[in-house]
């Protein structure tokens, strides 16, 4: 167990190092890409370019540039935006983080609850018409682009049916901090939560159903039935409990991905000014430091989540440790 954890942590450190290196190379060293040029504006004179290179340290050797960038990202945390001269990137990201976290946490609660309900219902109702029906609904959920679903939700709740009592409570697009007005925070996030959770409800319901059915054939479940336990008890104490191992590890990974930048599209469609929205804004004016910072921090968060999941998984299921 300890050896596994140590090995896993060392691998994580290596992965993080390679990710920072890769991102740095992609953003600053791709052949033909010149950050100085994107800083300088249209048709810069060679003198201006040289000045900018010198000012931003772009003329120094590669390892120095990389180390300076890493120092700015992680130690001094004073990386500065290109397009907004003087604007520090790190405070911008920490200011945007609560919106992203609110969005992902709420969606996670909804998708876990709905997916368990749907997956269990489909597995229990196997053989009836409801099982394939639920699975078709799940499949449709998986097949929808989230940003389009968000637009459809906006169209319905903000425009077409906003006049009806059903959706008249929906506030205009945007994010209200929880500390400022909890009621408005909730109302403003409910539609984004539902939109973001649709994909995961479909995905998890399908995985859970398959896993419940597979585990239902195991010997220990038959034993549980044979000793006279009720179906309900067999389901909750035996099959569902085992299925949760896969479910929890899957959840950890997806949650990490969403917090680390995967909620970008939902944030853009609903105008929630989270970290993903920040990335999106920087995309439009090619503000490389901001994009790079959000990508690196996001990737770090995801890698960290993966490691936690792996360690938790090996703790829950000893079979994993050996491989």
């Amino acid at each position: 167990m300890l050896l596994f954890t140590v090995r896993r942590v060392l691998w994580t450190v290596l992965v993080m190092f390679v990710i920072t290196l890769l991102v740095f190379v992609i953003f600053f060293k791709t052949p033909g890409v010149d950050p100085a040029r994107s800083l300088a504006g249209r048709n810069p004179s060679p003198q201006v370019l040289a000045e900018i290179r010198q000012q931003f340290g772009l003329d120094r050797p590669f390892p120095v540039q990389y180390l300076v960038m890493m120092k700015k990202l992680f130690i001094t945390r004073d990386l500065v935006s290109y397009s907004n001269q003087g604007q520090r990137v790190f405070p911008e990201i920490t200011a945007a983080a609560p919106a992203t976290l609110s969005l992902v946490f709420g969606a996670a609660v909804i998708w876990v609850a709905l997916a368990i309900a749907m997956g269990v219902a489909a597995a229990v109702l196997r053989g009836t018409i409801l099982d394939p029906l639920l699975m078709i609904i799940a499949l449709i959920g998986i097949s929808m682009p989230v940003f389009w679903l968000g637009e459809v939700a906006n169209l319905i709740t903000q425009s077409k049916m906003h006049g009806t009592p059903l959706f008249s409570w929906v506030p205009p697009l945007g994010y209200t901090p929880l500390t400022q007005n909890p009621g408005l925070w909730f109302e403003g996030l409910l539609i984004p939560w539902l939109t973001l959770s649709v994909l995961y409800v479909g995905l998890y319901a399908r995985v859970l159903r398959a896993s419940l059915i597979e585990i239902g054939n195991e010997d220990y479940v038959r034993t549980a039935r044979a000793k006279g336990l009720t179906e309900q008890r067999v389901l909750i104490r035996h099959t569902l409990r085992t299925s949760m191992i896969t479910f929890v590890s899957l959840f950890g990974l997806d949650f990490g991905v969403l917090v680390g930048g995967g909620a970008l599209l939902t944030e853009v469609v609903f105008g929630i000014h989270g970290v993903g929205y920040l990335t999106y804004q920087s995309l439009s004016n090619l503000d490389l430091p901001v994009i790079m910072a959000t990508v690196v921090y996001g990737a770090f968060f995801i890698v960290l989540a993966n490691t936690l999941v792996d360690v938790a998984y090996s703790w829950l299921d000893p079979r994993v440790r050996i491989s």
Partner: protein
Amino acid sequence: MTATDMAAAGGPGQSGTARPRVLPGPAARSPWAIAGRRLRHNRSAMASLVLFMLIVAISLAAPLYAHDIAHVNPFANNLNGTTVVGGHQVPIMQQGGGTLHLGETPIGPTWDMGHYFLGADNLGRDVAARLLYGGRSSLEIGIGSALICCAIATLVALAAGFFGGAVDALLSRLMDLIWAFPVYLLAISISTVLLTRANGMQIGPLHLVAGSLWLPTLIIALIYVPYVYRPVRGQVLSVVSREYVEAAIAQGASNVRLIFSEILPNVVSVVIVLFPLMIATNILTESALSFLSIGVQPPNASWGTIISDGQQLLYTRPWVSLAPGFMIVLVVLSLNVLGDGVRDALDPRAKVRRAG
């Protein structure tokens, strides 16, 4: 060994009773024929295949529709043009259409095949024609990147599984690294940087014009390689120590022959199962990147860019965004159902971890 050989090998005691048995029809077929039969009997999978082929065919007919039915150029602005609705000449950009939009609103759906069936976008371009052209781009990118991705992943997996040892360790670690990198963030990073190059780029012998569809195709193909690599490598490892491979080694077969005629045919089913799912995933990824304006570049259209174009018109002309979204849902849904069918047909017990 045929059934006759088996009976003959049964020993002297049984040779009198054993008659050469010819197995009945279906059982004597190749595994591929059996799988094909299973797939053909899967009605929902066949219906999805038909739907998918239909959408591919309609999208391929985009130029035909634009030139001969709608008579429009879907890539040129048409702010001063007119069209015919119910026998009257109507301007495409209408004054004061919406209270919120000062100025002009493009014409809405006419539901008339010849005249702006789905209306026009902000630049007066025919949405229906763009939808078909956009479908062509989206499908080309989806299928193209799935082909490239599966080809690369299979080759790498064959090399890793066959040579094993250090080669396997190195390649697998490399794949783990790409896997650990969040898909969207990797795509965003690469796309952003490559988009800053106005003059296109040179990758070996391949020259990419700026705005070429190859750019998103290659990026999407690259980021999903580990998702295909993992299951294929697993299959290569399980095949590489089978008796028929040993037999081929004993016959003195070269490595190339071992890999391509002994191992490859026995791992290709894994790739085939993943293929429709990869197309679906790639189309969704492409639409997301295009929506963020870092995928397909204007003047080219894809379903993602049309949704993005329609965002400003969402409340006045919702069909601009709705139509391409429905197309994506139809295509991805049909591919997912087809993928499930192919998986059930080839290996009823296989479980596929869906990428993304």
